[in-house]
C-alpha cells in the first residue's frame, strides 16, 4: 500500500453543506444521487403525461383534452422519459457504481461530471416551459419529423435548444465514463476482469459520443430550415424530408441500445448474485454487447420502411435488423444458463431481473416481427409499435433500472429496503404493466394507429383495459418512491456484502459506501473478479 497511489482530496478543510454541497459537488456518489433523484422526478412527470394520454384513450371520442394537447402529451412524454428518466438513471447508476466496481477513487473528470448533471435541470426547465407557452409544447412527436415539426409554434426553437443542452450533457457524461473505465481501473482489473455493467457502459458511452452529435446535427438542420431559409428537408429546394428520417434514425437506433445495454449490464450483475454462480459465458457476453453496438449503426432504416425506399435498401435493413437477434439471443441464453442448477433465491432485484428477462424477450420478439418488411407495412405506426417499444423500454430498461436500484440501494443507504414492500411493488408492477401494454399488441394488429386521441369503437375494450392497467401501474410507482424514501431513513443495517452471493469490488466497501472509497486502489485478481471463471 504505497503512499504514492493514494488519491488526494482537498476536502479535509471543509465539505460544503446544504444546497452548496449539491451544486458544487465533484463526488461521484453525490452526483450519482443527483442523477437518480432527477431521473425519478422526470419518471413521475413523464408518467403523469402518459396518464393524460391513457385517460383520453379510455373511451372513444374526445373527452378530456383537445387533440392538439394530446399530441403535445405524446411528444413530451417521450422526450421526458427518454432524455429525462431513462438516460439519466443509467448515468446515475454509472456514476455511483463504475468507480466502486473498478476500484477508482472517483470519476476521471470530476468537475465535468458536475457539469454533465447540472445542465440537465436547466435543459428540462426549457423543455417543460414550452407547456406554458401560448402556442403550447411541441406536438409533432418526439422524432420532430419535418415538415410537421416546422409548422408548429414557438416551441420548436426551445425544444431544439433543450435537445442541444441534453446532448452536451450526455456527451460529457459519456466521455467521463469512458475515461474513467479506460484510465482509472485498479491494478489487476484487466479489461476481461471488468464486471459486465462496466463493459456495457463502456460500449454505451461510445455509442453516446458517436450519435448524440448526429442528433445535434439533425435538429440544427431543422432549426436552419425553419429560421434561416435552408432547404435540407424541402423538396422544392432539392432537399428531402426523408433525409431527416435517415439522420434522425442514425441517431435513434443506437439510442435505443444506449437505453438497453446498461440494462443488460445490470441484469448480468444481478442474476449471478442470486443464482450464486458466476455468469455463464462472460466473454461471449462482452462480444455480444459489442456486436449489438456495431449492428446498431447499420439498421436505422427499419424505422422507416414505409417511407418509400429502394427495395434493396429495405432488404438490407431487414436482414441486418434480424441479425441483432443473434447476439441478443446469446445474452438471453447465457442468463438462463447462469441460473441453471444455481442455488437461486428471489429477492426483489432478482424478481425484477427475471421480469426483465421474460418481458424484454417479448419486446424483442415483437421487434423481430416489425423487422420483417412486408409485415411492417401492416404494423407501421400502429399500436403494435407502441406495445413493442414499451415492452423493451418499460419492462426492459425501467425494470432493469428498478432491479439495479433495489440491488444497490443497501450499498447507497446502508439499510436494507423493505423486502415485503419490494416484492409487492414487483408483482403489482409486473401484473399491471402487462395489462397496460399487452392489449396494445392486439389494438395495433387490428389497425389502431398511434398518436391519435380518438379511435373507432371496435377498439374500445382493449383501450379500456390498457388504461386501467396504465393507472394501476402508474400509481403503483408511488410505492417505489415510498420504499426508497423509507430505506433512506433507516431500517435493518446492511452488511458490506449485502447479498450472500454478491461478488465484486463494490461489496468490499462498507454499507453505506463512505464518501470517498478506494483512495488507495485495491489489487484485483481472479478471486475478486466478478465474472471470471477460474477454469478459463
Amino acid at each position: 500500500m504505497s503512499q504514492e497511489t493514494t488519491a488526494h482530496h482537498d476536502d479535509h478543510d471543509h465539505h460544503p453543506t446544504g444546497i452548496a454541497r449539491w451544486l458544487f459537488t465533484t463526488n461521484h456518489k453525490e452526483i450519482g444521487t443527483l442523477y437518480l433523484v432527477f431521473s425519478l422526478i422526470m419518471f413521475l412527470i413523464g408518467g403523469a403525461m402518459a396518464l393524460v394520454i391513457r385517460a383520453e384513450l379510455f373511451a372513444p371520442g374526445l373527452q378530456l383534452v383537445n387533440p392538439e394537447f394530446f399530441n403535445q402529451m405524446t411528444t413530451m412524454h417521450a422526450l421526458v422519459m427518454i432524455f429525462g428518466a431513462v438516460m439519466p438513471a443509467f448515468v446515475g447508476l454509472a456514476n455511483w457504481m463504475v468507480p466502486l466496481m473498478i476500484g477508482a477513487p472517483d470519476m476521471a473528470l470530476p468537475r465535468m461530471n458536475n457539469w454533465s448533471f447540472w445542465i440537465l435541470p436547466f435543459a428540462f426547465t426549457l423543455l417543460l416551459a414550452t407547456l406554458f407557452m401560448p402556442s403550447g409544447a411541441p406536438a409533432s412527436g418526439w422524432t420532430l419529423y419535418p415538415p410537421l415539426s416546422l409548422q408548429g409554434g414557438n416551441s420548436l426553437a426551445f425544444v431544439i435548444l433543450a435537445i442541444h443542452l441534453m446532448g452536451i450533457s450526455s456527451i460529457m457524461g459519456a466521455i467521463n465514463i469512458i475515461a474513467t473505465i479506460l484510465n482509472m481501473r485498479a491494478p489487476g482489473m484487466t479489461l476481461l476482469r471488468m464486471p459486465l455493467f462496466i463493459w456495457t457502459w463502456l460500449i454505451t458511452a461510445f455509442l453516446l459520443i458517436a450519435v448524440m452529435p448526429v442528433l445535434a446535427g439533425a435538429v440544427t438542420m431543422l432549426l436552419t430550415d425553419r429560421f434561416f431559409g435552408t432547404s435540407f428537408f424541402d423538396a422544392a429546394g432539392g432537399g428531402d424530408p426523408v433525409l431527416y428520417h435517415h439522420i434522425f434514425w442514425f441517431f435513434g437506433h443506437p439510442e435505443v441500445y444506449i437505453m438497453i445495454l446498461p440494462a443488460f449490464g445490470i441484469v448480468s450483475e444481478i442474476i449471478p448474485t442470486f443464482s450464486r454462480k458466476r455468469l455463464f459465458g462472460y466473454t461471449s457476453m462482452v462480444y455480444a454487447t459489442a456486436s449489438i453496438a456495431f449492428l446498431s449503426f447499420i439498421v436505422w432504416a427499419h424505422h422507416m420502411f414505409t417511407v418509400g425506399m429502394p427495395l434493396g435498401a429495405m432488404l438490407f435493413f431487414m436482414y441486418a435488423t434480424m441479425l441483432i437477434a443473434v447476439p441478443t439471443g446469446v445474452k438471453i441464453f447465457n442468463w438462463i444458463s447462469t441460473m441453471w442448477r444455481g442455488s437461486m433465491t428471489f429477492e426483489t432485484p432478482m424478481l425484477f431481473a427475471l421480469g426483465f428477462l421474460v418481458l424484454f424477450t417479448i419486446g424483442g420478439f415483437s421487434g423481430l416481427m416489425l423487422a420483417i418488411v412486408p409485415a411492417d407495412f401492416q404494423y407501421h405506426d400502429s399500436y403494435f409499435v407502441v406495445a413493442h417499444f414499451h415492452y423493451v423500454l418499460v419492462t426492459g430498461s425501467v425494470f432493469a433500472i428498478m432491479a439495479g436500484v433495489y440491488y444497490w440501494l443497501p450499498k447507497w443507504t446502508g439499510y436494507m429496503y423493505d423486502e415485503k414492500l419490494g416484492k409487492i411493488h414487483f408483482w403489482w408492477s409486473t401484473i399491471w404493466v402487462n395489462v397496460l401494454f399487452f392489449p396494445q399488441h392486439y389494438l395495433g394488429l387490428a389497425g389502431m394507429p398511434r398518436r391519435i386521441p380518438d379511435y373507432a369503437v371496435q377498439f374500445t375494450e382493449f383501450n379500456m383495459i390498457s388504461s386501467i392497467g396504465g393507472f394501476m401501474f402508474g400509481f403503483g410507482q408511488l410505492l417505489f418512491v415510498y420504499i426508497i424514501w423509507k430505506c433512506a431513513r433507516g431500517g435493518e443495517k446492511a452488511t458490506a456484502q449485502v447479498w450472500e452471493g454478491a461478488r465484486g469490488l463494490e461489496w468490499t466497501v462498507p454499507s453505506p459506501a463512505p464518501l470517498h472509497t478506494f483512495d488507495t486502489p485495491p489489487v484485483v485478481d481472479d478471486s475478486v473478479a466478478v465474472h471470471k471463471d477460474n477454469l478459463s
Partner: protein
Amino acid sequence: MAQGTYYVPHSAKWPIVGSIGLFLLAIGAANWLNGGPTGPWFFAAGGGIIILMLFGWFGDVIRESEGGMYNSAVDTSFRQGMIWFIFSEVMFFAAFFGALFYARMFAVPWLGGEGTGAMTNELLWPDYEATWPTHGPGELGGDFQTIPGFGLPLLNTLILLTSGITITLAHWALKRAQRGLLIFWMIATILLGVIFLFIQGYEYVHAYRDLGLTLGSGIYGSTFFMLTGFHGLHVTLGAIMLIVITIRCAYGHFSKENHFGFEAVAWYWHFVDVVWLALFLFVYVI
C-alpha cells in the same frame, strides 16, 4: 498504473455558472429566433457568463497544472477526454456530410425522376432535371453561381496545410525547449488561421453579393454554407485556443515533458484541417 496522487477537486463552482450561462444562452437564442425583444439580451448575458466561466474554469485548471497537482493519470484522463470530444465533433460534421451525400446521391436524382422518384418528377416537377449544383425544382433563392474549387479554396487548403506544419514545428520547438522558436511558430500558425478566415469571409461576401449564392439557394446553398460555416466556426475557436496557448507559452507555461494543453489544441487544429480537406474535396472540387 497511477503514479502519485490522482487529483480530485473538492468542489467546483464553475460548472453551475456554466449551466446558468448555457440556460440563458438557450432561452435568449430561442426568444430571438421567435422574434422576442428580450432574446438578444438574454443571449448576450448567457454568452458573457459562459466566457466568464471559461476563464474561471480554465484558470483553475491551469493553476493546478502549473502547481504540479496533476500526475500522469490525470494527464491521461485529459487526453482521453480531448480525443473523445474531437470524435464527437467528427460525428457532428458527419451528419452534415451525410446530408450532402444523401442529397447528391439520392434526393436530387430522385427529384429528377430516377428510380423511385419517377412519379414525383412526373406529377410535381416534370421540367426538373437533376443536376449538381442545384437549388431544387422550386429554384429557391434565384439563380446562382458556385465558387470554383481551384481558386481561393485551393489557396485556403494550402494555408491550412501549412498551418498544420507550422504547429508541428512549434511542437518540436517546445520539445527542444526553444521558447522563442515555439512562440514564432505559434504566431505563424495563428496568422495562417486568421488569413484563412479572412479569405473565407471574403468568399462569403463575394458569394452573397456577386454570385447570388446564399443560405437560401436550395440544397446547394444549405449544404455549402452550413458545412463551410460550421468549419469556419471551428477554425475561429481553434484560433482563439491557439492564441490562449501562445500567451501561456509566453508566460513560460508548459515543459518539454508536460504540455497537454498545447497538444490538445494542436490535435484540435489538425482536426479542423482534416475536416477542411474533406470539405475541399466534396464541397468545392467534386
